[in-house]
């Protein structure tokens, strides 16, 4: 039917999600209202905003240079005075660096790694899923079997294996964490693409001579953004946890870069002497951030698919 009644390409794309600007505004308002009424989601969002604020303005908020060492003032307890009229509110570490300042700087790196890794994994996974679902056949087989093989590894082991050869570094850890996530996205996108490629508006786009690229990225992709957002928010939480674990093992970012994971790694040698503040505060920062992403993920899933809420 669509073949006999050509639909202009631009309008077919617009009709895809039915996303006119007034529709989008209405959806945004609905999302905002739902978030305000769901107390947990609001708390999650507030934590997330706070962490983002710290990640952006951390350097201005930090009372000390995070790398400034002062061996005379090493391992001070929280609340103890530093030199001058400053205070180590969260204590100092084994090199006399201020824990609070490193925590504030660490927010930037931890969030950056989380979001960048999701971007890398999300992009690779989405393209792979679109190609796999749309073309099917041997391409589909190869891509999905590759994913199966990757899933056969506990992820942290896979990351260890690559990072031990590549060496620690910001780009390396983003790439490894990102590549570790692609299959999650590929599977979701593939499943959605399989059902969407039979829809009339996709057929219409094909009939009007849209290129495959345009069909994949302008007709199909906008319709699978919603589930991808849910996966991404859960995934950021997982990636932040993995980054912390890898940094703890000494495979994350180089030691001089303050991240929450590397701070925890440094705390290990001082556990027996009960320098608890070196471990407690960076850990709390990770827990709060991951919790916020998990809560937002839960809320988004319920918001986008209310049927799931019944049992959730």
């Amino acid at each position, binding site marked *: 039917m669509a073949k006999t009644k050509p639909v202009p390409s631009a309008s077919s794309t617009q009709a895809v999600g039915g996303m006119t600007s007034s529709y989008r505004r209405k959806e945004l308002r609905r999302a905002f209202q739902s978030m305000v009424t769901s107390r947990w989601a609001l708390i999650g969002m507030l934590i997330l905003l706070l962490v983002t604020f710290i990640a952006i303005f951390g350097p201005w908020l930090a009372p000390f240079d995070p790398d400034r060492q002062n061996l005379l003032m090493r391992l001070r307890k929280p609340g103890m005075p530093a030199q001058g009229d400053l205070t180590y509110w969260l204590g100092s570490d084994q090199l006399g660096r201020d824990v609070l300042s490193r925590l504030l700087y660490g927010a930037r790196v931890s969030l950056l790694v989380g979001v960048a890794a999701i971007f890398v994994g999300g992009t690779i996974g989405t393209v792979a899923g679109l190609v796999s679902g749309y073309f099917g056949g041997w391409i589909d087989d190869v891509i999905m079997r590759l994913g199966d093989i990757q899933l056969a590894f506990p992820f942290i*082991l896979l990351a*260890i294996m690559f990072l031990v050869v590549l060496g620690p570094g910001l780009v390396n850890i983003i790439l490894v964490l990102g590549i570790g996530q692609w299959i999650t996205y590929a599977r979701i996108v593939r499943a959605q693409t399989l059902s969407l490629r039979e829809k009339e508006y996709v057929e219409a786009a094909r009939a009007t001579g849209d290129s495959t690229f345009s069909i994949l990225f302008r007709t199909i992709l906008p319709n699978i953004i919603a589930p991808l957002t849910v996966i991404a928010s859960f995934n950021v939480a997982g990636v932040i946890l993995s980054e912390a674990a890898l940094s703890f093992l000494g495979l994350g970012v180089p030691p001089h870069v303050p991240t929450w994971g590397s701070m925890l790694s440094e705390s290990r040698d001082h556990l027996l002497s009960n320098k608890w503040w070196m471990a407690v505060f960076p*850990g709390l920062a990770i827990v709060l951030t991951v919790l916020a992403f998990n809560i937002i993920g839960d809320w988004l899933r319920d918001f986008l698919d209310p049927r799931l809420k019944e049992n959730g």
Partner: protein
Amino acid sequence: MWTFLIRRLLQSIIVMIGVTLISFVSLQIGGDPTYLFVSENATTEEIEAARIALGFDRPLHIQYLSYIGNVFQGDFGNSLSYRMPAMEVVLEAMPATIELTFFSLVLAIGLSIPLGIYAALHRGKPMDGGIMTVAMLGQSIPNFWMGIMMFLYFGLYLGWFPISGNVPFLEPLFEGDFRKAFTNLPSTLHHMVLPSFAVGTYTLARNARLVRSSMLEVLQQDYVRTARSKGISERRVIVNHALRNAWLPVVTMIGLEFGFLLGGVVVVETVFSYPGIGRLVYNAINQRDIPVVQASVILLAGIFILLNLIVDLVYARLDPRVKLTGAS
């Protein structure tokens, strides 16, 4: 059933070959892998000799074929720091890791099932909210940080549990010394409480939520309503009708969980100086002892694949629909 079994076995073999491919690629990704196997002070002649001895001068596909052959024979070369076959080093540390992972799994599953059921049966009440809030928190705590906190509070501050080392149970058991194994058992468990709680927290939290939602779904099914309307006691409805169906998703998760827990154990062992594969890998990372890292990772992946195979077969027995369709 046989077709399903053979198909599933073949799949596992293909995946295992894929694992070897990935580990081979990981060796090559940083450039000439020879440098990973020689000391930093090696001369050019020594490096060249090592390249020939290790076979890295051959074409890539030949290297890969011989790599697969070696992997399936458990030959990863000699450990650079222990000066003995890497696989032997790893196998020595294996029983401690298996003990810890298994105990974590038992703890996590053993607690998550009653908690999930309780929450589902008291849906919307304060206890349900409480359990689910703690579960959400449990899913947000890095396992090694949980370990550090338990180390500091229950180990160091209260002194209730040992904070490092282990007392072997499996090792004497494998050696046939049953008496020693069972004399050790209480002490083994005592040493494992803190690390296994730390490793299992995430799994416990996730499964409590999974059991709850699975149970809620089953409780809404017609056959549960029918059973209730027939006047069967609530206890029997839950145990015989609801629970039998609700635990299928949990069984599927157990295989995956074991792999996930193995990953967690690797990190948590370093907190408690627990002498398993995790601590071995950590030391190997610091000494860039690549053969030990490779042997550990591939062995753990192999165990993970084997367990998933077993779980799929168990699942096929539990759920007759799988047998009929032959689908995995």
